[in-house]
């Protein structure tokens, strides 16, 4: 067991833990001991018998000219239809999916496609062992051919794929090429329009877009359309100070001031660059031992959706920062890593909040940016009363435009009883800062439409 964790656990124990808290912490420690794995790995590309067909088998896979995907019209139509389903009293069926083609350079190609399933009564494999239980596979095996003794290993695949090694379905990448951005933008548009998410307020101006508006903003000396009286007066005073006609003390006789020809400042109608407001979004994810499987997937999926939506809202002017935490927090540089990483340690929410505060302070992000913090966790925290987390959270709320906490319950405890939920509610911040802080609690079995409802809750 990690010594540091051990020490932390002991110190917590000294201060007194209830039996439940103790067992919760012990469970995470145990998971780490077992090197408990998060089931984040993408299934290997092994096909069943019925996945083979003449077209695919005899298809020549050499790349051809790419075909333009011109389907927005009908995708919208299908989504419109799906909305109608809801009104007719049936659940929605179309999901917006993402397909990723990983590439060596990291500029993965992504396309947005609709997906749906036809639900039928089908046989399933016998699955045992819950999420996060890193034991065997539970599958009955597949076919294979070639050399090798029984028991011999014929290949291996990392449980946590390296960056760029994902096999698709890995969600949205960040940074990278134009394709990703434009597709995330599309997804954001769909989310905004189809799911009626609200718009955000502007704050600060910084980066420019190549877009101009015409306004009386250009200032010229000596000629122009409208005299800018305030600016002119300011120049006159400067001139007179220089001429020592205005001194430090005593009243100024405005009748006696000299006016230089260059002092007159006019405004003129001219084209101006317009500046778009800009956002920095912190995605913070708990990747501790108890987050295995489903909660991680839910949190990450929700974050992909939020990310896409923000890109749309801010016309690509979004900076994203990814932070992972267990008992300690670290920043990772892209979504792939953010999505795929997992450890099996304990949980300290405060560490992540402190890191966000530090980054904002160090880089002076607050001045020009809307800052959003989205935190996904299963709600476990060793800091059970939030003694450290709440002060950090308060600090965060002084600058953030919105802090959204998603608690994806891992199903181990009683619903509505997670540590994070309890201490956040108890702190009174939810009422006090109701415009800035939102919390959304989802169960392990939530669907995508539930996630979107959750987003609405977090950002409305």
């Amino acid at each position: 067991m990690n010594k540091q964790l051990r020490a932390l656990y002991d110190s917590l124990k000294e201060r007194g833990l209830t039996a439940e808290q103790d067992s919760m912490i012990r469970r995470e420690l145990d998971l780490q001991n077992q090197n408990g794995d998060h089931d984040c790995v993408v299934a290997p590309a092994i096909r069943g018998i019925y996945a083979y067909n003449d077209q695919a088998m005899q298809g020549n896979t050499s790349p051809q000219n790419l075909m333009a995907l011109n389907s927005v019209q009908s995708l919208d139509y299908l989504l419109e239809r799906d909305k109608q389903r809801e009104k007719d009293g049936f659940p929605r069926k179309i999901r917006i999916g993402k397909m990723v083609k990983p590439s060596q350079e990291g500029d993965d190609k992504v396309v947005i496609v609709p997906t749906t399933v036809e639900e039928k009564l089908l046989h399933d494999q016998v699955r045992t062992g819950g999420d996060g239980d890193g034991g065997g596979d539970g599958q009955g095996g597949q076919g294979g051919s070639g050399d090798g003794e029984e028991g011999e290993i014929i290949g291996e695949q990392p449980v946590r794929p390296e960056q760029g090694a994902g096999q698709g379905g890995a969600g949205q990448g960040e940074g990278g090429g134009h394709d990703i951005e434009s597709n995330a933008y599309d997804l954001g548009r769909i989310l905004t329009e189809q799911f009626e998410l609200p718009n955000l307020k502007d704050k600060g101006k910084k980066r420019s877009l190549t877009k101009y508006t015409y306004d009386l903003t250009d200032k010229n000396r000596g000629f122009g359309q409208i005299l800018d009286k305030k600016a002119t007066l300011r120049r006159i005073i400067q001139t007179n100070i220089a001429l020592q006609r205005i001194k430090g003390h005593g009243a100024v006789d405005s009748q006696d001031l000299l006016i230089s020809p260059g002092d007159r400042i006019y405004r003129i109608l001219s084209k101006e660059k317009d500046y778009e407001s800009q956002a920095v979004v912190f995605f913070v994810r708990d990747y501790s031992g108890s987050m295995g499987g489903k909660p991680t997937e839910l949190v990450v999926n929700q974050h992909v959706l939020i990310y896409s939506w923000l890109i749309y809202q801010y016309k690509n002017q979004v900076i994203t920062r990814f932070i992972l935490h267990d008992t300690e927090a670290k920043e990772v540089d892209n979504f792939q890593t953010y999505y795929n990483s997992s450890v099996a340690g304990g949980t300290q929410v405060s560490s992540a909040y402190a890191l966000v505060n530090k980054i904002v302070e160090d880089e002076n992000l607050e001045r020009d940016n809307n800052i959003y913090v989205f935190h996904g966790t299963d709600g476990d925290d060793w800091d059970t009363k939030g003694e450290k987390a709440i002060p950090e959270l308060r600090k965060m709320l002084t600058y953030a435009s919105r802090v959204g906490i998603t608690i994806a319950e891992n199903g181990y405890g009683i619903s509505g009883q997670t540590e994070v939920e309890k201490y956040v509610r108890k702190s009174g911040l939810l009422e006090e800062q109701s415009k800035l802080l939102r919390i959304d609690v989802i169960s392990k079995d939530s669907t995508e439409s539930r996630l979107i409802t959750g987003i609405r809750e977090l950002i409305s």
Partner: protein
Amino acid sequence: MELVSQHAKRIMEGCKERARDAGLKFQEQSLEYIVTNRDFLQLSPKNMIPTLYDYWVQDVEVLKEQGQYELYPNNPYETVINTRPPISFYNDNNPDWLNVMIFYHVLGHIDFFQNNLFFRNTWDYDFAAKALADKRIIAKLRSEKGRWVDYVIEFARSVDNLVGYFDVLLSLSENSKKLTMIDYYFDVFLQDKEREKRSIASYVAEIELYNKSIREFPGDGEERFIDYVKKKHAEFEPLFEKAAKDWHKGGRRDVLQFLMENSKFLGREENKWMLTVIEVVRATSLYFQPQIRTKILNEGWASYWHDALFLKDDRIKGHEVDYAVINAKVTSMPRVGLNPYGLGMRLFAYLEQQSEKGKMTFDYRRISDQHKRKQYNESTGRGKDFIFSIRENLCDSMFINRFVDQEFVDLHKLFVVDRRLNKERMTWEYYVKSRKAEHYKAMIADSLYHPPAINIHVDDDNALILSHVFENKPLYRDYIEGALLGIEFLWGGKTCLYTFEPEPVKRDPSQSGTEEEPSREIKWRRVRYTMKDKKMTRVMVD
């Protein structure tokens, strides 16, 4: 979409001639169309049948495939559909030598469609035309009923895998006879466990009694025996009548048919149009059943023949290497995975050889000496006949179960792969789990199409009760709600599903950490899902 050029058609006719000479049998006419890659994308969700009814899920699939095509463009060569005449689709940019290979592959499929007994009831069937009629009916209904047509299609499709294919075959077959009293008495009545506990001796005594009656009264022995039965069991006659009634219904496990016949909701005057829609969905599903149950055979057969015929074809001299590359892509066995083309083709070739040497006989099986087994060769000259009879009579499950033996598994170095977690390196290790034929067979059997068997009842409150027949396999839980929602709609009332779900038995903590991982124990729990007013509840029943 257009017909192939006269040049390509001439190549096709040449292939037909050679294929006939080799023993394949198929009708004279066939239709070949040229399509673009984009057409392929649009046709594949419709099972390649352009005239199949429109449905929004197909649109979603097309969009998805177009997206996939954008990422991973490919250039499919052909597909073929089973209708009269058979229609096949080709890409427009194939060189002639490639067309020769593809045509042989297609002819293999056509031969299979037109000679395999599981397809018998499609032999005189112009499905493309039937589908066109269906498409028009549905389009007409859609203009009247709007999106509700699509809901009915959706809900019917949510149970279209439960059409009782074998029950329908049984009712179509000439041998389907009436239930006789004698059959009922011995097969059902006497063996009914709930009625009374019977010893085997008493059962045998009854048979003896029957035989005696036949012997002593050759004219009316059977009637006398029935009289005796009726006297002995007062309840026999009414029970038999009830059973005979059910017997004639047929399609006992066909949920769609049951709904069509018994749903009061569908029976209402204003809902009668739904029956038309459901029948279209059901007929389409039934039509595709033989196809899905003969995947390995069908692909194996087509691959066997394109390989056998291509290399003998004089028109392709000089393209052997090109051919080898393409053929290898289609028929190689993956290191991990199961390629039905490769598996089927190898099994056919193996069986032909075995039969040629007379190894499909009892005499051969009796030999235990490995050397003698290897040397065994009767030169029967019946290898081809044997595989032709397989192509005529079997489906996948029979094919695999009967013919995959240790010799075959060893010959092609087949094995079962599994994976396990390596905790030090944090990797999934794929390892050779078993090279035993029985394990390999079981593994394939597991991946074959096998929809759950569902028994249907209606209880006193007019709730539809579906009981899933236990086969050591649970149902896929995520889909249950969607499927039940559809059934409830079509039934027009409360619907229950009984099934079994595994519950892992907790491992003894003192045992964990030992080297050998104890095999996971499972307890099966009976579960009832109830769908009422679009709300689903799940309870354990024990």
